[in-house]
């Protein structure tokens, strides 16, 4: 374990940890602010899945792109999404990423290569494959990464997109976060196989399983997949085994959990686990981590303050941004 850490720089390890804390705390803060009334819409938090979100995105370049899901805050923050614009979007303000039009399910930042969260299970996968097609045609070294859940692999969209990606050896990583549930239905009642990485064989490319609660393992796995993709060797399906600690959405009574399951996964909570590892390695001390953690809190305080102070959209704004060209306003 200590060996494994040795290959990474101090800055990199710190940034991974900071980002994981940011994701965790962003979610908890958003949930709180939703209760407090700042945020009007639903939240599907990724608490428990920080390692997979952060590890995967850390393996990408800034000019690489991702497509995300309904459970996307971690992916976006990992890819560099700014907490204040995200929070402002959740708070439905015109300073939000999507000017208040998208909300949690649709946050995007094209400058950062975030092609969008998505409200349709599996809906982002073909889009990532299309982005990868563009990169291939442009002879660029950019890659695309599609995030999706264990439930999404049973959608036709996954299948068609994976087949096309394999056929054309596109530079795309299909990243499945297998958190054992799709809404209230356990994974083993949604598909007849438990290791979804296996499905890659149908599409002629490798499928890899990784401990989704181990940020370095995720990072290394995705890094290898990205190298393959950049080298023109085509896609990889990565399955990160993980678990979500909160309801499918905030308010979900979670009647479906198997007994003992939550407790056993709690033992493997990715954020304290990585924290402990950093301490054990001797390369970080308690004080240094506290500074990082306080930095996150400060950033989130600012993000919330920014969101709360941000203006609401003007009603008329609803009529703009549907089209690039409106032909004299005719399209409405």
């Amino acid at each position, binding site marked *: 374990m200590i060996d494994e850490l040795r290959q990474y720089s101090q800055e990199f390890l710190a940034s991974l940890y900071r980002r994981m804390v940011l994701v965790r705390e962003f979610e908890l803060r958003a949930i709180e602010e939703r209760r407090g009334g700042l945020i*009007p*819409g*639903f939240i599907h938090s990724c608490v428990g899945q920080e390692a997979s979100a952060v590890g995967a995105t850390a393996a990408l370049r800034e000019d690489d792109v991702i497509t995300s899901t309904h459970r996307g805050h971690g992916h976006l923050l990992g890819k560099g999404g700014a907490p204040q614009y995200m929070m402002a*979007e959740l708070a*439905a*303000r015109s300073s939000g990423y*999507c000017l*208040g*039009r*998208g*909300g*949690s*399910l*649709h946050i995007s930042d094209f400058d950062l290569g975030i092609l969008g969260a*998505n*409200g*349709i*299970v*599996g*809906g982002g996968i073909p889009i990532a494959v299309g982005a990868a097609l563009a990169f291939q045609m442009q002879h660029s070294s950019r890659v695309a990464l599609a995030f999706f859940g264990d*439930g*999404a692999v*049973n*959608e*036709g*969209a996954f299948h068609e997109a994976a087949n096309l990606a394999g056929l054309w050896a596109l530079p795309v990583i299909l990243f499945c976060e297998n958190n054992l549930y*799709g*809404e*209230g*239905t356990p994974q083993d*009642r*949604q*598909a007849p196989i438990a290791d979804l990485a296996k499905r890659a064989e149908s599409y002629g490319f490798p499928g890899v399983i990784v401990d989704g609660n181990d940020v370095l393992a995720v990072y290394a796995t995705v890094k290898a997949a990205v190298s393959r993709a950049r080298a023109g060797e085509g896609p990889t399906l990565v399955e990160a085994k993980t678990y979500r600690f909160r309801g499918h959405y905030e308010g979900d009574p979670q*009647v*479906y959990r198997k007994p003992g399951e939550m407790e056993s996964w709690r033992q493997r909570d990715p954020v304290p686990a990585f924290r402990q590892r950093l301490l054990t390695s001797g390369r970080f001390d308690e004080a240094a981590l506290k500074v990082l953690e306080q930095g996150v809190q400060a950033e989130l305080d600012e993000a919330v303050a920014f969101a709360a102070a941000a203006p*609401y*959209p003007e*009603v*008329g*704004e*609803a*009529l703009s941004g*549907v089209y690039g060209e409106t032909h004299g306003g005719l*399209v*409405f």
Partner: protein
Amino acid sequence: MRELTYSEAIREALVEEMRRDANVFLMGEDVGTFGGVWGVSHGMLDEFGPERVRDTPISEIAIVGAGLGAAMMGMRPVVEIMFGDFLMCAGDQIVNQVAKARFMSGGKADVPLTIRVTSGAPGSAAAQHSQSPESWFMNIPGIKIVAPALPADAKGLLKTAIRGEDPVLFFEHKMLYAEKGPVPDDADFTVPFGVASVVREGVDVTVVGVGNMVLKALKAAAQLAEQGIRVEVIDPRTLVPLDKETLIRSVQKTSRVVIAHEAHLRSGPAAEIAAVLAEEAIEYLDGPIVRVGAKNVPLPYSPILEQFVLPDVSDIVAAVASFWKR
């Protein structure tokens, strides 16, 4: 009569039909353990077990297609698509298989398949969870389209759907689930397709409402009554088949008509209703056929924008009032 919510009325219809006929079963994403994301099938797993209240994978093509195959083999499946927004994931099965199976077979295939699906904006659910897709399949011959507004109609129309021999798209408006109304407890109470309901009588103007807009039309009518305008409110209840006769009769009397739905204005259900009236009842009309609906933009997340895009009571009031302001 006892009062039930719209949601309870639907559950009662499902439960009664499943008790009555062993071939009826319910299948969809999270309809079992979860009780449906809207709670409609709450408790049904306990009574009927996982064979007849089936949680499915997230696979809309398979859900609808398997419903069709089972229907052709003697079952009477009720399948649920969680949000109307996801209907298009199964679009081909609905349009090319379910709707056409009987006709293509020379009329021989029975397709007693009910597709339950939610419509409407529940508030800040944004563009992919707020749509009202009632008109998306109206151009397709072979599938019936039902959109109840009142609890009793929800129960009675769902029973007609389940007992019938044809595929039905059954739209349940999310914002109606908690609304209460009287519901007959006769287990054989059904509501026929193709018969509009005159929810309020009036002589000055006809307001046709679809789904939740029936309730808004009633509120508008109450407000307008204070100004002395007597509004007739009509709920077509089924869009396919459409009870033209009741609509035309009303317009004959009032000579003014407003058609309201939560769907986007362009090519929503009102387009067809307006076209029917413009073709078959124009001589009775004393002014334009006015449509009220969501503006032609995707549903925004922000409540301010969303309220601006969605039609409300005041839009119906304004549309009606416009007849006297020319």
